[in-house]
């Protein structure tokens, strides 16, 4: 078997034990590749556990900039004896195995068709260090050093990363660089470096930044003007609030007195979290929560209240598998229906689908304007794949001329001037009523917020006509929302085609790559990335303009497809499911395979429209 030769285009997978400190070493390695100008897309595959269970860090190196998961593994860094067999089995034929050779392994435990690279990491560590924790942590740095040699990378780049990471802590820098050198030199002396897989300096990264989506959401909430966050810890959304807190401490601490221009409360549960958010938003502050599946389930009743009382709240939902523990540390897009129609009664909610950390930031900030403008809950639906993995994306930008759109808030001056105020009155024809913030005016504009049982002036009413008026206005408001949510992004195929594919969120990089794979096979598919719900007219037009539209999703029931069928009144036969839901991020190979198979199975070979002669 000929060893794989590939420069700047391969997959490395690290098999580790969680709690061993491997995550930061692996991340540093990914960052080193990025600093060499080569696009890299790492993904953490981790258990619901703190210490001792298997964890993997999969890193796709792609000069072409494909950031979706590729699948397969060209170089396995097998540091976990528990998962040895399955890790070895996963290596592509001709691939490489890097392992700790301190303890001799029988030949039967290896494969003939791979290149085996052993370094006695434990032995070196035990020789060099006496402290048990140091032995563990520096083992990780040591394999990073060895990989630097094996892949022919620039040692100084990794060295500088360590210096950056531990700036101001010189002792730590020296110790880490020493461990790095030990690994590097041992590999250089004992193994034939470099191997067939190489990282060479390139210019594929440019100005892009490397950040995870949850951090970007937290930052988006800061830029979006959020001041109140109520939350309850839940994987994988917890770090949204942690990031919000840390950016707030940095950007929202009053320079004069050190006081906080924000309030974050860890609630007793998700019900209280959303309750606090609703209370704060009702009272005129921008407020949000971040949660995941079970939290969304618990918040249902409150979503209905916010919808009918028309309170502008923002909810970041970092989607995952569910329920219980286990799948929750795996990615899915399985909360669309739970969010789109959340709560009892006739409700419909605005959803946003960011594709990467850049959009987590921009759509995250925009969500607050949309919520205020529409006076309704807005859900930002990302998922674990974007939320918890560092991803290369375009740098954040902000227009300093931009002002927050607080929507239709009636001021004391307007009330004083005698402007007609009916809390639920549609004065502008767009379904959006005016609101007042508590405390505005001594005698005008106060109202009593309830669910549905009131008239346009917020007075208690059980009259059917008042209820119908309200529901029709809410429908008008949802129509208005159509034009306000971010527009879909169309990527036409290289030539005209009757086939389309609709996708959203974290599927984006895999879809882009799948399109290229299909193009290479002569299959042309226009793609449309949906960014918001309610669906803009362009989404329905796109479906109408194609004969077959694949709906690519990371859930089992085809939830976006359901929404399209219901809301767009589409013929179900027209929308073909492409569903990936095993908890791993969707791949281009999967999408291209399914679309390719479907087109051949249905024998839907492109037919030119008959031209009347």
């Amino acid at each position: 078997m000929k060893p794989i030769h590939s420069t700047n285009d391969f997959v490395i997978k690290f098999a580790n034990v969680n709690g061993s400190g491997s995550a930061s070493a692996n991340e540093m390695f990914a960052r080193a590749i990025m600093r060499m100008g080569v696009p890299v897309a790492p993904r953490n595959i981790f258990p619901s556990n703190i210490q001792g269970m298997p964890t993997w860090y999969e890193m796709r190196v792609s000069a072409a900039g494909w950031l979706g998961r590729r699948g397969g593994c060209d170089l396995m860094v097998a540091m976990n004896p528990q998962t040895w067999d399955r890790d070895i089995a996963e290596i592509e034929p001709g691939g490489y195995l890097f392992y700790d050779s301190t303890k001799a392994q029988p030949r039967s435990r290896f494969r003939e068709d791979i290149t085996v690279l052993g370094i006695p990491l434990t032995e070196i560590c035990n020789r060099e260090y006496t402290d048990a924790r140091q032995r563990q942590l520096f083992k990780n740095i040591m394999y990073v050093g060895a990989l630097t040699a094996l892949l022919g990378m620039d040692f100084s780049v990794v060295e500088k990363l360590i210096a950056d990471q531990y700036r101001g802590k010189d002792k730590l820098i020296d110790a880490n660089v020493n461990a790095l050198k030990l690994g590097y030199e041992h590999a250089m002396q004992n193994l034939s470096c470099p191997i067939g897989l190489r990282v060479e300096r390139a210019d594929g990264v440019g100005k892009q930044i490397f950040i995870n989506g949850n951090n970007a959401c937290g930052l988006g909430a800061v830029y979006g003007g959020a001041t109140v966050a109520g939350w309850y810890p839940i994987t994988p959304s917890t770090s949204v609030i942690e990031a919000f807190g840390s950016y707030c401490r940095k950007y929202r601490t009053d320079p004069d007195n050190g006081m906080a221009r924000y309030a974050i409360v860890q609630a007793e549960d998700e019900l209280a979290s959303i309750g606090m958010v609703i209370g704060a938003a009702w009272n005129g502050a921008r407020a949000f929560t971040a949660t995941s599946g079970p939290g969304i389930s618990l918040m249902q009743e409150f979503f209905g209240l916010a919808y009918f009382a028309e309170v502008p709240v923002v909810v970041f939902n970092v989607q995952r598998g569910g329920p219980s523990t286990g799948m929750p540390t795996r990615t899915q897009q399985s909360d669309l229906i739970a969010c789109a129609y959340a709560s009892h009664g006739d409700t419909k909610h605005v959803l946003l689908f960011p594709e990467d950390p850049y959009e987590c930031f921009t759509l995250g900030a925009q969500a607050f304007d949309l919520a205020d403008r529409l006076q309704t809950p807005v859900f930002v639906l990302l998922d674990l794949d974007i939320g918890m993995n560092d991803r290369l994306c375009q740098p954040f930008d902000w227009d300093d001329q931009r002002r927050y759109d607080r929507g239709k808030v009636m001021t004391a001056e307007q009330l004083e001037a005698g402007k007609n105020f009916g809390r639920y009155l549609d004065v502008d024809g767009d379904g959006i009523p005016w609101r007042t913030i508590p405390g505005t005016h001594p005698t005008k504009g106060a109202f009593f917020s309830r669910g549905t049982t009131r008239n346009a002036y917020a007075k208690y009413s059980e009259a059917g006509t008042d209820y119908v008026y309200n529901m029709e206005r809410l429908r008008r408001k949802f129509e208005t929302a159509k034009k306000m949510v971010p527009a879909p992004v169309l990527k036409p195929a290289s030539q005209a085609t009757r086939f389309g594919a609709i996708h959203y969120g974290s599927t984006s990089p895999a879809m882009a790559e799948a399109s290229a794979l299909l193009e290479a096979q002569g299959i042309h598919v226009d793609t449309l990335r949906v960014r918001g719900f309610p669906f803009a007219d362009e989404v329905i037009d796109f479906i109408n303009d194609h004969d077959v539209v694949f709906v690519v999703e990371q859930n089992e029931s085809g939830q976006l497809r359901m929404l399209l069928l219901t809301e767009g009144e589409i013929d179900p036969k027209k929308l073909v499911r492409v569903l990936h839901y095993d908890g791993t991020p969707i791949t281009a190979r999967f999408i291209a395979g399914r679309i390719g198979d479907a087109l051949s199975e249905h024998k839907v070979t492109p037919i030119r429209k008959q031209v009347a002669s």
Partner: protein
Amino acid sequence: MTYLAKPKLLRTDAPKNSLGYTRRDYEGAISTLCAGCGHDSISAAIVQACFDLDIEPHRVAKLSGIGCSSKTPDYFLGASHGFNTTHGRMPSVLTGAALANRDLTYMGISGDGDSASIGIGQFAHAMRRGVNMTYIVENIGVYGLTKGQFSATADKGSKSKRGVVNNDTPIDLVALALQLGASYVARSFSGDKEQLIPLIKGALRHRGPAFIDVISPCVTFNNHAGSTKSYDYVREHNDAVNRLDFILPRDQINATYAPGELRRIVQHDGSILHLRKLDSDYDPSDRVGAMNHLQERHALGEIVTGLLYVDSSAEDLHRHLNTVEKPLNQLGDAYLCPGSKALDALNASLR
């Protein structure tokens, strides 16, 4: 029906407070509760307390959950914003509202079903957090709107209107509030406005979580023999530990007290709580003593009322979070958005 507005008062000689408001300015829509419901007396006490304290009605936010008691905020302070939230969840919505604007006065109105059953978690955590609010439970011992089922505050052995005996141990919200960190804790009776009004005033001017459990007999479902929350039972077993006179800093103190009879407590805003002792051993600054006293008297079938505990130096949630003095809902873009330069620097650190 509540959408019937009360007619504007035409009397010109109605007394005015220092803001120029009459009592009518503190009233709300006409109550839809049963004739004789104790809740209406509590609403009237709130109106009187706010009038006496010269509170601007629009600077009060009144929040409630679901149930008979939670309907009442519509019946007082018509010029205040109100929020009738979901069942048992008023405390969280109030907490959020209080975070958004620390300058308003927050009043949470709840019932025994709303706070002791479905909402016991939120009740407990709002107390723990030190939310600056006046939290009133209108405690009737049964579910009114759903017609007379026992609530979690019903005493063991008490009898329902249909003759069913309650076997479950009652939850004493006062005991919970004491344990969980409320810094102003009182119990009163809707039939005793002389006691109730000063207690509400003291609560409104208290900084931190002020909790008042008001026994309010349900005239329709819980006012019969065998009930421990009937008018007759509460009158007979009302064991008041003290009587409160609430005194604003500007007021002259005219009352005279016998030596040893009075305890004087100054709140953070300068308002004064004069407590006339009825039980010579009772010390309202002793939290553990208060808890013991409650348990002992409850075992004897007595209902302990009065200002049971007060800590006038307590800190509230805003202090814990170190939030800026200006209400968060009034911070402009410039105070909230770090701008593009900060973003450029951040981008540079992410490469």
